């Protein structure tokens, strides 16, 4: 809730900030270096620059919010189709009185967008086409009509046609005060609708059939979502352009999806990512002089997505790689401990020391590899090394862990042969994997199930809790768990 009210506050401020004073268009300032322009950008003195920045960030929030619903509903392509479908509406809005009137363009574009959505719905309902073909058809045909109308407008004399071309790739610098207010209104509308009807939007997006069984007006919520989506697209056109507005819908939401498993959090993340991308787009467009804003916004959003993909705490590639490598390191350590136990066992637990050579022979490895493994065990305080470094002895922790692994392995072998009736010579490979993942609770269950047996299918001792005490190390079978092994 706190996060949401913070967003509302931001949106309110952003609408109020732009000055009424009409200053030079920011793209007309041409007498400075990149650094000067960057400084100028962050001084926020230029009113038209403030318009551009506020508008871009607002559109990021708005698209981020609506895009979240597109992504979780698997309707990402609908955003693409709708954004292209509004183009003829923009042209008709301009033709209304041959000027770039934000309201006329807004109304025209919204109508065109909703018409496009209607055609998609109609094609799906009346033909055997699925959604993808319907979306593809609407996207291309409406866009085509839009291009034709735009070409016609260029050839018609009269009217103030400057800036109309910006609708294709976006130019935040061309945002007027009216455009920013429009964006502010749409953002506040979307935000408050989502805050008020969060429960309804969530359940109708997740499980429409169930929502209808509760008597909810699912269609009404679907259509209001589509209407808000059309509003978001249309009010963003000026700054990000017809071609790339769909990316601003999908990319921040997709990045947020990688970072969280909760819809509310995803909405907040997506809105913030959109805001950052919008701001960054405006910045680079300003610094780079006259460059279209849309591509920069989308690139910034893509960068956010890449960051989420690599560095996400749970699903990120880096953290997954980290988890995997720590796990394989742990398994390697545990296997080395097990080998030490085996060496000790073969010697009838007469000594406490295991030489590097014995370990290497046991694991059929080179001396160097065995040394590396002992080094890793020493770092985890599982073994202490003799002064010449030639042999190692287990610490209490090391003995305990080694016993656990051996016990897990042998218990599992016994379970597979006894309970699952798998031949004794088929169970080793499976136990090699299971031994590293068995939890204490499962072990207790297995022990109970196996009647606290102390011999594995190959006749070797299964260490029990008593054996794991360090004092029992020299005599692990003197604890009532059967007689000496090694045979």
């Amino acid at each position, binding site marked *: 809730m706190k996060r949401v009210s913070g967003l509302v506050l931001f949106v309110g401020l952003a609408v109020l900030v732009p000055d009424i004073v009409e200053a030079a268009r920011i793209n007309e300032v041409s007498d400075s270096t990149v650094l000067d322009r960057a400084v100028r950008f962050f001084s926020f003195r230029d009113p038209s620059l403030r318009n551009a920045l506020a508008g871009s960030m607002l559109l990021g929030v708005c698209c981020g919010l609506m895009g979240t619903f597109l992504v979780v509903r698997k309707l990402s392509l609908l955003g693409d189709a709708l954004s292209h479908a509004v183009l003829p509406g923009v042209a008709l809005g301009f033709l209304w009185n041959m000027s770039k009137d934000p309201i006329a363009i807004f109304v025209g574009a919204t109508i065109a967008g909703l018409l496009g959505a209607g055609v998609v719905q109609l094609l799906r309902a009346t033909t055997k086409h699925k959604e993808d073909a319907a979306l593809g058809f609407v996207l291309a045909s409406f866009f085509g009509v839009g291009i034709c109308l735009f070409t016609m407008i260029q050839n018609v004399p009269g009217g103030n046609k400057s800036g109309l071309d910006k609708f294709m790739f976006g130019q935040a610098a061309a945002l007027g005060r009216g455009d920013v207010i429009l964006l502010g209104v749409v953002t506040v509308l979307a935000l408050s609708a989502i805050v008020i*009807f969060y429960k309804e939007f969530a359940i109708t997006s*997740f499980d429409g059939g*169930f929502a209808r*069984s509760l008597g*909810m007006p699912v269609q009404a919520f679907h259509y209001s979502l589509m209407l808000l989506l059309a509003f978001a697209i249309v009010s963003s056109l000026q700054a990000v352009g017809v071609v790339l507005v769909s990316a601003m819908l999908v990319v921040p939401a997709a990045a947020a999806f990688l970072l969280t*498993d*909760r819809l509310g959090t995803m909405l907040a993340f997506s809105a913030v990512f959109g805001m950052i991308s919008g701001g960054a787009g405006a910045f680079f467009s300003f610094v780079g002089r006259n460059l279209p804003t849309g591509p920069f916004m989308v690139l910034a959003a893509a960068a956010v997505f890449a960051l989420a993909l690599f560095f996400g705490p749970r699903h990120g590639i880096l953290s997954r790689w980290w988890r995997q490598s720590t796990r394989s390191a742990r398994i390697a350590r545990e296997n080395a401990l097990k080998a030490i136990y085996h060496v000790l066992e073969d010697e009838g637990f007469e000594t406490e020391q295991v030489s590097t050579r014995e370990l290497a022979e046991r694991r059929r490895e080179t001396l160097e590899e065995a040394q590396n493994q002992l080094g890793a065990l020493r770092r985890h305080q599982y073994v202490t090394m003799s002064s010449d470094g030639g042999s190692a002895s287990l610490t209490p922790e090391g003995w305990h862990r080694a016993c656990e692994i051996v016990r897990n392995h042998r218990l599992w072998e016994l379970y597979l042969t006894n309970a699952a009736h798998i031949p004794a010579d088929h169970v080793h490979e499976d136990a090699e994997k299971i031994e590293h993942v068995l939890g204490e609770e499962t072990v207790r269950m297995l022990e109970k199930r196996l009647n606290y047996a102390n011999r594995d299918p190959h006749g070797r001792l299964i260490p029990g809790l008593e054996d794991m005490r360090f004092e029992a190390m020299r005599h692990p079978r003197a604890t009532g768990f059967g007689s000496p092994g090694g045979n």
Partner: protein
Amino acid sequence: MNRSITESRTEAGAIRPASEGILMNDGTQASPPPLEVHDLTVAYHKRPVLYGLDLTVPAGSLVGIIGPNGAGKSTFIKAVMGLLPLSCGWVKIFGRSFRESCHRVGYVPQRESVDWDFPVNVMDVVLMGRYGRLRLAQRPTRQDREIARECLEKVKMLPFANRQIGNLSGGQQQRVFLARALAQESDLYLMDEPFAGVDAATETAIIALLRELKLRGKTLLVVHHDLASARDYFDMLVLLNMRLVAFGPTNEVFTPEVLQTTYGGRLTILTDVAQTLGSE
């Protein structure tokens, strides 16, 4: 076999629904049946999938809906709740239209009907069962959360309350759906294949839960695909194959003749069932 068909036909052939209130001898009104269906007909793209179903489900019964693939089992459940338009006929739930009684109906949709990657956790989903009782824009209360927790406990899924739903096994997902239906605290439950894709232990747990609900006076209609267990699980059966083949107490309608009509032409299933029947 024909006996049960005629029976249900005549019964529902009455001009007005029984649910409008039957005056008992002692002057009190019997409460209307949980579900009364008359001449229910549903068509997809003008191709009929269910023809003229008539049936009245008595309160407190555990009813299995069985029939071959494409027999219209799910369609029947959805049509009862008005999720699909009826070509003709009517449905009364506790004597009223579905819209008026929807707060008394709990629903377990098919597991495949939702996207399990959706960003919600187990608790969120179970809380959705409470949404029907909340006003528009009203948030779930502390009490709703408490009830949702209890329902999770009942299906032994409380330890998973904060788990994203995609990280659950099929049986666990099914139990989450069941907990959500329990949270609805309804009187009539409609369940679409709650046993699909669950392990044996879960299946046993689910059927125990359904029986407990029945003992508490709830009425349950359960779409089921496994003939072998249908006879043990349910005390009444609806046998569907686009038409209502039979409806009645399990021991009366679970006969080779009825099953032959229901699964007509599907020899493999028939052989299976013949064996099941023969072995007992």
